[in-house]
């Protein structure tokens, strides 16, 4: 499944938003879609869906600062 599609579907199901409410270029925290625990939930999702174990130094806005950044992070990890 397309990473972006899978991630957006996860967000919609778990954070009670509709797809058109998510700005893919903005921080999910800043948009009020997730709180701090939401990042833990997303990281757990990435681990279960893609086997990505996020290390402390990877928990930065460059990797988790928006849907597009998370997708790029997954793609980098997979490549």
């Amino acid at each position: 499944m397309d990473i972006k599609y899978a991630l957006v579907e996860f967000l919609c199901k778990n954070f009670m938003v509709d797809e058109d409410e998510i700005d893919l270029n903005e921080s999910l925290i800043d948009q009020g879609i997730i709180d701090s625990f939401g990042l833990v939930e997303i990281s757990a999702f990435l681990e279960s869906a893609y086997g990505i174990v996020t290390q402390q130094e990877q928990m930065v806005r460059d990797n988790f600062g928006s849907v597009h950044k998370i997708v790029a992070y997954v793609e980098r990890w997979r490549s």
Partner: protein
Amino acid sequence: MLAPLEHRGPDEWGVYVNSHLALGHVRLSIIDPTGGHQPMNSFRSTIAYNGEVYNYIELRRELRALGRHFQTDSDTEVVQQAMEEWGVAALPKFNGQFAFLFWDKRNKQLIAARDRFGIRPLYYLPYKGAVYFASEMKAFDALPDFRRTWHPDNLLIHGVLWNTLDAHTVFKDVQSLPAGCVAVFKGQEKVDLQTYYQIGASAAEVPASFDEATLQLKALLQDAVRLRLRSDVPVGCYLSGGIDSSVITLLCKAVKKERFKSFSVVFDDETFDESHYQDAMTALIQSDHHAQTIDLDHIDKHFLDAAYFFERPVFRTAPLPLFLLSKKVRQEGIKVVLTGEAADELFCGYDTFKEMKLLRAWEEGAGREDIRKILFQLYPHLAHYGAKDKLGFLEMYYEGFLGKTGGPSAGLAIRIHNNQVLSKYLNKDWGVTFRLDTLETLVEAMLPANVKQWPVLRRNQFLEVKTLLSGYLLSSQGDRMAMAHSVEGRFPFLDHRIVDWAFNLPETYKLNGLREKHILKEAFGRALPAAIVDRPKRPYMAPELAAFIRNGKPTEKTAYFLDDQRIRDYGLFDPKMVARLLFKYRRRGIRDIGYRDNMLVSFILSAQMVEYWIRHPQSRRLTDSRRQVDIMEQ
């Protein structure tokens, strides 16, 4: 309207009627049980008064020196005569917790007043050409053809701030007289509203040194406890196991010098259990101790009962243990308890004060290692995050608030940010028009004009007192849960002399590094069991979900209130969103659910239950034999 309030005053009741108004009163007899009947009528005035003015003995002396004579030993008569003598200038003289209606016969006007911090409630409702007053909003449902209806915008604001602003409540047309205010009504019109007290307005002298400050705190608090032990019925104490209530029980012991009853909640689940701290204190003060054990079934079973009294959505199940504890207190024959409420606001016990400190350190250039060190101190358990290797996410989260700590309302930024999700859950067709991006402006409008000159911590303390304490903790968790079983809570930390004094203390006296309540611990630490003074923070858990969702399924009661059809019938929430939330719990263990989702469950469930009680008002009647006052005048 009196019958729905009988729990607040089961001992006796009375009415006063003239051609302009009717005053009713239900009495919980504490001071001068045989003399202080209400409404209290004199040649010049009539008063219906709820609460206590603790310095009534000193005020009575002052009034006698002015030539006044007293028929009773009650504080009610002192308040009445003080109002007759000084008018609203009497209010700043009162040290206590009160709300009253004072009918001025000469000027044919009604004065409504409320204590400085809003400990005692006073609601009013303009309706069909009259104005009605009550201590609890449910009383208005007794009016012909009236039923409370929600105010969608105010419900949203309440959801985000944990309180409504100014005089607003979550219900249309129902107003709350703001804390520290006095209003004058003539006919059906409110002709004047004055603020006689504002926290932070007094320039209390700052102690010369920390050592001097600790001595002053000891003296002030001991005197506050002494005054609050004035009662003609036995007084007990709540003992949670934390330092606040431990200090109060310690001082109670010092002042009373005789054995008294203390009361604690003991949680069946050892994760929440604090009984070994309570045991250490009861061994020290040798109190006659009584514990109310609570488990998850209690929370599930009695949450609806508590909702009848808290009357608006709540965000945690915290009111419930206090609801059951007051029942225990009453069963033990006690009507009055001292508690440690408000020390968190005065001496910076909440994490929100530390979070703002963290952000300020970060903004001022603290290194990543220092930030992590602070985060570890803030979240030593990191249960939220499963393990400490998730610390980076916490950093990311707080990073989003950098640059936002300087504004006057910055102290509420994190709460507003976390809670704004509630706007998605409200019924989209319900007519919410309020824009959350204007909330900051509304909050700033309630701040004093000189707020920008205040240190950041003081601003944040002000906001906590004005939002969370006055409108939520003292009401939904304080007054309503105690009065549900006819128990009066008294709060020594809210003696205004202590509040004004603490408010002006240097920041490091209160929050020293990240050590909260520093001065309280230094002042009383050596007299308390060491384990209580610097006890470790407890891990965050999800008691709400654990009580209401079992093995992924809502309990029977939860299922009833979150049922899709009932959500549609009541019309407060978006059924799709509630269904999604339940779906989430079904798939995941409650230990994998964060703080925000946990809060959502409490909010939605409690709002549904409040609506249930509006639709199912209780039919109650007062007992005729308990009527002590029945006056009719022209």
